């Protein structure tokens, strides 16, 4: 301690202090901002593999350097999260040029998806693929998530995430197959018609809450058959066709003569 006290008047002391302060600020900043996807530090081989995959699978529409064409938007700056969402849900590569890219079995395996994401992320900064901790439903509060879901998501995706129709053939898809990672990526990147919900609109904890709420909807429904949770359409169909039809059938049977 004495040595430290003695050296504080050393001519290099301000420099050392400044360096210490800078390092401390940097560490504190990186801790506060919770930089996503520190795990996915892509190697050069990943990026090269991704570029090869991109050339053969995506460049017809998105252009040889992902700069975009008349058919499809530029991918510079969309980030790894956007690529991972589109490819891991099978939406991209698109089957045909329809109003909506539908969810289907993914064409790429996990490794190829990450390579593609690494390549596109190398073109310009954008949202990265979230870490497992960022999307952990166990750390979310489903009740708080319900309030956020009601205010921000339920108008398109239905109150329990059963999906719904938009305009001109577009739909808000049901959320029953989306993984926590895909839900997070959709929030932050706004795929297709969906607007972006960034950290200012829904905080990182809020995103976990929303994920917890969506995951909660996959639990057993204590009310029995949900009929798709589509509200009056499927329930009305059931009541009018099956319920009333059954009653009419019974009435006809009661009125018919016995043989």
């Amino acid at each position, binding site marked *: 301690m004495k040595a430290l006290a003695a050296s504080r008047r050393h001519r290099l002391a301000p420099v050392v202090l400044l360096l210490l302060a800078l390092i401390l600020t940097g560490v504190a900043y990186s801790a506060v901002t919770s930089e996503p996807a520190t795990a996915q530090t892509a190697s050069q081989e990943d990026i090269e593999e991704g570029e090869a995959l991109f050339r053969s699978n995506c460049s017809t529409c998105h252009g040889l350097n992902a700069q975009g064409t008349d058919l499809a938007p530029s991918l510079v700056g969309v980030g790894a999260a956007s690529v991972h969402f589109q490819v891991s849900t099978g939406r991209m590569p698109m089957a045909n040029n329809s109003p909506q890219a539908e969810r289907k079995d993914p064409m790429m395996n996990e490794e190829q998806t990450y390579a593609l994401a690494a390549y596109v992320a190398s073109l310009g900064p954008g949202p990265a693929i979230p870490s497992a901790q960022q999307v952990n439903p166990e750390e979310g509060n489903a009740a708080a998530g319900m309030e956020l879901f009601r205010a*921000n998501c339920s108008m398109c995706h239905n109150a329990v995430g059963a999906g719904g129709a938009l305009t001109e053939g577009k739909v808000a898809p049901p959320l029953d197959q989306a993984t926590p990672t895909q839900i997070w990526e959709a929030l932050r990147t*706004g795929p297709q*018609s969906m607007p972006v919900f960034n950290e200012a609109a829904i*905080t990182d904890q809020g995103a976990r809450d929303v994920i917890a709420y969506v995951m909660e909807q996959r639990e057993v429904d204590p009310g029995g058959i949900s009929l798709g949770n589509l509200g009056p359409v499927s329930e009305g169909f059931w009541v009018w066709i099956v319920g009333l039809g059954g009653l009419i059938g019974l009435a006809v049977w009661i009125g018919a003569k*016995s043989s």
Partner: protein
Amino acid sequence: MSTNPPPGELTTGGAHASDVPEQFQDPGLEPHQLRLADRSEKNAKRVERQVVAILIVSVIASIAGVVGFFAIPVGTTLMDVRLSTLVIGLGLGLGMLGIGLAAAHWAKALMDNTERVEKRKPVPSPPEVREEAVEQIATGIEESRIGRRPVLKGALVGAAALAPLPFVVPLVGSLSNTWDVNRFRHTAWGDVPEGTGGRLPDGSVGRRLATDPDDRPIRAADVTIGSAFAVIPHGLPDEEHYLEEKAKAVVFMTRIDPNELAVSPERRDWSYDGIVAYSKVCTHVGCPVALYEQQTHHLLCPCHQSTFDLAEEAKVVFGPAKRALPQLPITVDVDGYLVARSDFHEPVGPSFWERDR
């Protein structure tokens, strides 16, 4: 029965028009047909066994429902709740359905079904009975002296007329505690309580825009292009009548590329660098309009598919709505937060008679 034409005559192809009777003839009863159970005791026994079998199913279902109530513990998992409800419901339903089906089958197949004719009785009572009734009413009125006591009559009518009022008045009165439609011309955006506003460069104060439902003020820099915000006035959750005020003040906000945004000269300072805020209450019948498609800038109402184009001041592009969504004039305060310049410039929500007055 002897006057009836023999069956089949009317349908024979060669019949003359004169063969057709002028008036529809009562065909009378069809000849009685014996059922299977009437023709042999063996068949009757079989029907009896069927009815008994249905009743036994009913008995088993009822017992199973009660057993299920005790046997399935509720409260450990949701699956238990579902199973318990299912078993009790099936027990109750099959128990009662079985009784009904057995009764109907018994009546149709086993009970005596010989047709009988019972003539309808004349509807009016005989004249002397009716005359007597009229006489009794007249005597009753005469004996009550109501004709000679007008005050009594007035008091009775008055009491009868006032008696329903304690029921009707609260019913109508509690529809709303005020009938002043001018309430719709004012929303919470027009007030700036202490601590909810931000100071503008010109010194005035505007209410900050905050996220719904967690009430965090929003910085203009955080609203990226294509992002969506459900917005309420900052500090509103702490106010009295929060939900009533929220219902009028909810706003949808997004940022549109300024190159794609059409802004009329009189609304030049209503948006901030492409950030636009519009009332979320549909001008058709007041549903929350919030299905936003960021690629087309269309905002869709889920109730009747009214579609508003946010890039063109929320004008109606489809559907039954007649007016554009009211725009909330916004700007940025000295700390970089979004604030409302003023209240909406027109009443939000669906039309009402005095709207344009």
